[in-house]
């Protein structure tokens, strides 16, 4: 037990918990690529093939 406590105290004192997982940048990286890609694709199809 004392060995484990020594190990844990070394690592845990130097370790700061990470910020929450989700943030605006992650939603942007998830949602923007398909939105931009599909919009361009749709515009291209409408433009090239024509309605």
């Amino acid at each position, binding site marked *: 037990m004392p060995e484990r406590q020594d190990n844990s105290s070394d690592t*845990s004192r130097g370790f700061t918990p990470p910020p929450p997982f989700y943030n605006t940048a992650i939603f942007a990286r*998830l*949602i923007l690529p398909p939105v931009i890609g599909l919009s361009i*694709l*749709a*515009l291209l*199809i*409408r433009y090239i093939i024509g*309605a």
Partner: protein
Amino acid sequence: MEKKTTLWRNNRFISWFFGGFILIVVAMNGYFLDTNDFPIPAWVALGTLGYLLFFARHEIYLDHEKNELVRRLRCFYLIKEQRIPVEAIESIELSQDKLQPRKKGAVNLIFANGKQFNLSGTSPLYKASKIARQLGELTGKPVKSFN
């Protein structure tokens, strides 16, 4: 010995089945985009939904080689990966969700300085308790439950 133990990951059947269905609908609409009146913003929104359902992979696993707890999100490419060394975790807490205390629970990691880190958001209680119990067994850290 296995290199990693998956604690939680999103349901692959739901991903393949529903994501695939939506993507097929979107593809057919895209193919007939010049002849139908389906509005482009709706087509883009449906395509985005199908893309996220089909390609998003979210998982939490224990890396036995590096002795780290990993939470990663990828969607075609790696979007975010968080690695938490197991030694830094003081204890694991299974707490109730404030809004739905009977139905949902959250798994929190407690660090030495008393800071709390929410591991997986809130999920159905049986899943959250399974994650907490499994994590406690694998890491040897104490699990604090609400009851």
